[in-house]
């Protein structure tokens, strides 16, 4: 088995305890891994703005992969090192169709979250009670718009991800069919009822692959860790793909190794086994 030279880990449901708090044992394992010369990189469906304070607080160094593999940033400075935006023609169609078929959607650049607000029963993604108590300086910035054109003005050229929610968790077949005719998309799901739409070339596998290439690291020297369907791509691709014990069944089936559940040190255990104790 090849040496692991880098670890790429999902955040929510894997590395994190809650939206802004990582598990201490995972942070400790990360520092030990970094001390050994093996970086630990976050790969998240969040955008940079939403995750940046966390990156600094938890001590992530080097690079971070955000928007479900659509961009790579420097973890500390936030500089954009790579971006795979959705081409504007496809983006416009994705927004238009999403609005037509289900309505609830947000679109993201690295630093902006743009929310289409003209919908009954609108409830922002990831709006949780525990965020209400969070210091305003840590809160995410969001922009509320009333038209697709306004969205395109803000996103133009840098729209990386469209997040869509369906009341019945699925969405009508005609929506997907229209979307497929509008472009070449990669669609994943980070949570039941939520869909992420990106351009072909993004996705966590795409982001991880791109970073590995930039750092001259071969896939067999990469360990990835995740829990959800949107982690499957990077789990299959990496030399060692780890599913935490609390991951979805299908994700565990496809992994090379199933670790402890995320809230029992799943990430720390994998780092110890494959990086620290070899």
């Amino acid at each position: 088995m090849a040496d692991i030279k880098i670890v790429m880990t999902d955040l929510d449901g894997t590395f994190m305890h809650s939206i802004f708090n990582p598990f201490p044992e995972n942070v400790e394992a990360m520092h030990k891994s970094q001390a050994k010369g093996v970086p630990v990189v976050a790969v998240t469906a969040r955008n940079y703005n939403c995750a940046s304070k966390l990156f600094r607080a938890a001590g992530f160094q080097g690079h971070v992969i955000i928007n479900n593999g659509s961009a790579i940033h420097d973890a500390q400075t936030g500089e954009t090192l790579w971006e795979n935006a959705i081409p504007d023609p496809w983006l416009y169609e994705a927004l238009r169709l999403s609005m037509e078929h289900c309505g609830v959607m947000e679109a993201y650049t690295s630093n902006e979250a743009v929310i289409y607000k003209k919908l009954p029963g609108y409830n922002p993604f990831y709006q949780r009670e525990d965020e209400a108590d969070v210091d305003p300086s840590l809160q995410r910035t969001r922009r509320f718009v009333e038209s697709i054109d306004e969205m395109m003005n803000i996103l133009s050229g840098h729209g990386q991800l469209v997040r869509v929610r369906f009341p019945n968790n699925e969405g009508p077949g005609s929506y997907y069919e229209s979307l497929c005719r509008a472009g070449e998309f990669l669609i994943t799901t980070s949570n039941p009822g939520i869909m992420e739409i990106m351009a072909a070339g993004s996705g966590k596998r795409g982001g991880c692959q791109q970073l590995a290439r930039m750092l001259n690291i071969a896939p067999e020297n990469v360990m990835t860790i995740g829990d959800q369907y949107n982690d499957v791509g990077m789990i299959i691709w990496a030399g060692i793909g780890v599913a935490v014990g609390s991951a979805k069944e299908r994700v565990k089936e496809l992994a090379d190794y199933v670790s402890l559940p995320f809230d029992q040190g799943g990430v720390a255990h994998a780092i110890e086994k494959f990086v620290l104790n070899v």
Partner: protein
Amino acid sequence: MNEIKLIVTDLDGTYLQSYHELNRENIKAVAAAQAAGIMVCPVTARNFDCARYAITESNFDAYCVTNNGAAIIDRRTEEHVFYNFLQPEAVRAIVSAAAEANAEIDIFTNQYVATYGPTQLKNMDERLKPWLEKPEHLRRHEHRYQDLEALISENCNIAENITLHGHEREEMPGWLYRRIIEQGEFYLTSSHHMCIDIMAYGSTKIEGVQRLAAILGIDRKNIMAFGDNSNDIGMIRWAGVGVAMGNARDFVKAAADIVAAPNTEAGFAQEVYKLIESQSK
């Protein structure tokens, strides 16, 4: 404009008059381009078997990008220069779910399409007629399956892309798409109405053309790309000169540098002759 050394062209809706009909003007234009030192290669969503007739008649250069970028075939030997199969477990999961949803399933390998479905699509014989009129060696090859397990086990290791149609051309259910999405990361596109094309990560026309360019040692600025559909936008934008056909949808035209005449008016040939002339000065 930089010197164009390679022309890449979509087939259906672009180079071809209709699905089975070649345009003689376009064939002559290919020859003229080649005589002027410009290579011409097809980039198609079809598998090689379904494109063989058009490719042979047109005398394209050796390398053909097929299956929407999942394969590059040397047409002289019909061997893969590049292939990107779907993961076997993903094929199994997707095909099983599609069967549960009563969808019509086409699994495209390089050399044939494996089909399975509750009933074959209506007017199948009508659709097959033009193929049957061709000489034997130019007909498309189809393996029809009655047994789902046989379909999966015989094809899951060599599947380049999967196309699904709703039974009786009905809409496929949302849960089926969700199930597909849960299996991993795929590219989803649609090459014609009421169908979904599922390709492995890494299979798009733009990636196919990028690989082709690398194989031939040609820079993107020296490439002209022709297309008409949304799955052509990637290569149209990436190539030095992107050409959208007159029959293309508006947002495809918006992505191009040049809008040609429609495919039914030999728009391809017109642009190629203009190019040859401008480069001969």
